[in-house]
């Protein structure tokens, strides 16, 4: 259960950014979360609420955009989304590929402020 420490880093990061923007109020944090990041969305959401307590971000929302796992198919020569993270292969031709292009993201992409 490392989601709480991740949530605390997100809150800290958003707070720093809010101060940099002139001590604005943060309404929501937009996060991109890859399916291969090793972070569980539900656990992160509940940890976020905890991490916000008694900080200027209390009451703010964490909006998570889940990023699917995209691999490069060496046979079709194009990026493809895997159907399951239990099977790293091209969904069209079934060629196995370890070449992950997307899906490891864990990044704050935007803040909703006022």
């Amino acid at each position, binding site marked *: 259960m490392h989601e709480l420490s991740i949530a605390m880093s997100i809150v800290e990061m958003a707070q720093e950014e809010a101060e940099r923007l002139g001590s604005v109020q943060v309404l929501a944090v937009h996060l991109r979360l890859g399916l291969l990041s090793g972070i569980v969305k539900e656990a992160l959401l509940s940890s976020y609420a905890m991490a916000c307590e008694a900080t200027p971000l209390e009451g703010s929302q964490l909006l998570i955009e889940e990023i699917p796992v995209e691999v490069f198919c060496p046979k079709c020569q194009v990026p493809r989304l895997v159907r399951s993270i*239990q099977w790293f292969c091209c969904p069209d031709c079934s060629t196995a590929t370890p070449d992950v292009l997307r899906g490891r993201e864990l990044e704050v992409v935007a803040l*909703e402020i*006022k």
Partner: protein
Amino acid sequence: MTAEPRLVEVRKNVLKQNDVLARALRERFREAGVLAVSLVSSPGSGKTAFLEKTLTLLHPRYRVAALVGDLATENDAARLARSQAPVKQIVTGTVCHLEAAMVQNALDGWDLNHLDFLFIENVGNLVCPSSYDLGEDLRFVLLSVTEGEDKPLKYPTIFNSADVAVITKSDLAEAVEFDEVTARRNIQAVRPGMEVLKTSAKTGEGMAEYLQFLERRRKGSRATAAVSK
């Protein structure tokens, strides 16, 4: 007048701090010519026995050292110290994984130039360690024959994040009716092309091949370091 809500673009990696430290560690390992190998697995898969055997076999010919992460005890370090290699315990408290900063702190006082191999044993956990880069050159994921063949499918993220899979406790394979073909197929499903080694720290099965693999990788990384100098 109240300001209207607006959206500001940020784009910041949440684990940036860890990743920056990990990159710096990797660079230090490269410059010192030491091959850093981390071990991840579930609790009880035989990480410490495997590491003890590794250190004992490498110690006469190479300069080896190990960092071992554990939640509460220092038993593992005491056990590993029997190999005569320098060993330092990282007690993580309630933290379920190692982070690059913990590795950096633990290395304080060690001269990496006097090492050939550094092993980093992570906390027994197949979930949390997957998100944290420790600066290692190779990440080994261990799977004991007693755990069942479907572990890779249950924990695809950590298996995918690793470079090498090591099947441990092979001496027990028959007793527990371990289906090696299925295990290997599952490993390849979550990480196509991954190297798989099969070992027993008890009988020594597969250890010679494993040591050759380590030596090859060390030569390879030293050659790259020499070229880029």
